[in-house]
């Protein structure tokens, strides 16, 4: 019998794998250049892959929610309102409520995508910490997250708009389709400040649930969604003016059925939403950098 060197005790099947047999097409310097140029997209790509695993749910909710709301509000409640209010609103209740429902859905998506998801990135699943060990920078993670969230708003708003069309809820489709990009803007105007807030939290002690109950739901109810702001007592009308959702809703009405309002007010709606999104983004990016560049 010939002497053979003892086999490695724990070699197993993988032992034979020669990792050097498959080398990357370029070296680390090129990897760093690519990451610098497109890192945010790489991170967004990862987030969208995650979205894919529950795409069915997103799509189901995306279609189901508008159908339910339109049946309840746009048809059920509308019958009563249109009879009682007569020409008070100027348009059928279905047309009045439809753009408001779409931007509300985008705002809620903004709250969802930027609360628990951000917390998971920093703490629960530490995805940000994993990505931070690669050539990606903290700012690119924030940007990638926002890009992926925007894709979600686009999907939600696009599906919502399709359902509105099916219900005949958009009298002016020539400008009405702009509800879809408006949904993306509304999602970010609300979502980016939430992201900045979530990135500063080291632990969720019920803050996100409170955000939902004390901010999202009141905004949904009191932003001129179901009735014009003028129907509220004067002392409460300021709620609408400070609400990003009111600005998005009114803008949506201008686009969907040509709501008559002064041009400066329309400009103000856009400016408010943009200002919230930009401020939220700057704060969020700083919060990411502070937390990840310790």
């Amino acid at each position, binding site marked *: 019998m010939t002497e053979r060197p003892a086999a490695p005790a724990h070699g*197993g*099947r993988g032992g034979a794998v020669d990792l050097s*047999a498959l080398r990357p097409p370029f070296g680390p*310097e090129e990897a760093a250049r690519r990451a610098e140029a497109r890192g945010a997209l*790489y*991170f967004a790509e*990862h987030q969208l892959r995650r979205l894919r695993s529950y795409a069915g749910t997103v799509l189901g909710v995306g279609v189901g929610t508008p159908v339910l709301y339109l049946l309840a509000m746009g048809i059920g409640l509308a019958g009563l309102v249109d009879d009682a209010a007569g020409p008070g609103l100027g348009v059928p209740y279905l047309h009045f409520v439809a753009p408001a429902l779409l931007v509300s859905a985008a705002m809620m998506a903004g709250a969802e995508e930027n609360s628990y998801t951000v917390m998971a990135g920093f703490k629960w*699943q530490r995805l940000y910490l994993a990505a931070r*060990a690669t050539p990606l920078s903290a700012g690119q993670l924030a940007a990638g997250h926002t890009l992926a969230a925007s894709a979600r708003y686009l999907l939600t708003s696009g599906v919502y708009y399709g359902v509105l069309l099916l219900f005949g809820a958009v009298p002016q489709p020539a400008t009405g389709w702009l509800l879809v990009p408006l949904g993306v803007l509304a999602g970010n105007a609300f979502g980016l400040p939430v992201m900045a807030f979530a990135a500063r939290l080291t632990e969720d002690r019920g803050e996100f649930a409170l955000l939902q109950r004390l901010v999202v739901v009141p905004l949904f109810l009191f932003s001129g969604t179901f009735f014009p702001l003028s129907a509220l007592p004067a002392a409460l009308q300021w709620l609408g003016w400070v609400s990003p959702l009111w600005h998005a809703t009114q803008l949506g009405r201008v686009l969907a059925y040509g709501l008559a309002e002064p041009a400066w007010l329309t400009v103000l709606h856009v400016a408010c939403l943009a200002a919230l999104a930009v401020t939220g983004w700057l704060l969020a990016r700083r919060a990411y950098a502070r937390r990840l560049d310790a």
Partner: protein
Amino acid sequence: MSEPVIRATDLVKSYGGVRAVDGLSFEVSRGESFGLLGPNGAGKSTTMRMLGGVSRRSGGRLEILGLDPDEQGPRVRAHLGVVPQQDNLDEELPVRENLVVYGRYFGLPHSYLRPKADQLLEFAQLTEKASALVSELSGGMKRRLTIARSLVSDPRILLLDEPTTGLDPQARHALWDRLFRLKEQGVTLVLTTHYMDEAEQLCDRLVVVDHGRIMAEGSPAELIRRWSTREVLELRFGSGRNAAAAERLGGIGSRLEVLPDRVLVYSDDGERDLEEISRRGLRPVTSLVRRSSLEDVFLRLTGRSLVD
């Protein structure tokens, strides 16, 4: 020795007023396997985070491949593979996709990543788990996947922070085997551990760190020679009688250590000393002669009191 790939000089990291790392200096050569050994809270992980370009140093100098990680973070990180102390895999994605998305962070194309992911899964013995969700894996499998993930960009330097903590012996040995193969393939390994056997198995050279400072440096064998004796004689005389017995052991071995449950005699010839002990009429309940290990060095340098 070739040009060092890592050069740390008087490295300092303070949190508030506390110096977690307090003036570490060391170099790591290409292809070397270098260990940072120390108790919990010694500053090992903080050092690793600075090496990995994710934590800014408070003082001193640091060069990775000649680059300053505080100034060239992304470039430095593009050269490294990192295995963090806590797994941070994406639990919601399948095993294989975890490798692909991580490779994308380095800008690597799918045409490379698809076959590379398969190769790495085989290396990590996870081929059968390729489409399982990470949340379904055992601790050892997750650790192997984390190591596989760190290799997706084919790094020449691998930073491993306590790679086998919390694993059972089978999983630890399987991991050591994988790491040893990487070392054979020329990868520079920098690892932290508080397992002495791990350090002895994997490290060409190591530093013992405590309170953010280097207590000793050398190969495992050198450290044992310098800080311990060839053998250790462990004697148990029964609780409460050890101290009294130790008084009669004068002149035996080069050093004595009296513990509540036993007496340790650091000796160059344990059997000879054991004979001498019985000539003196001492009858230990049990006696054991063993080779000195890194653990003896470690305990001598960092003390026996609990740190946590």
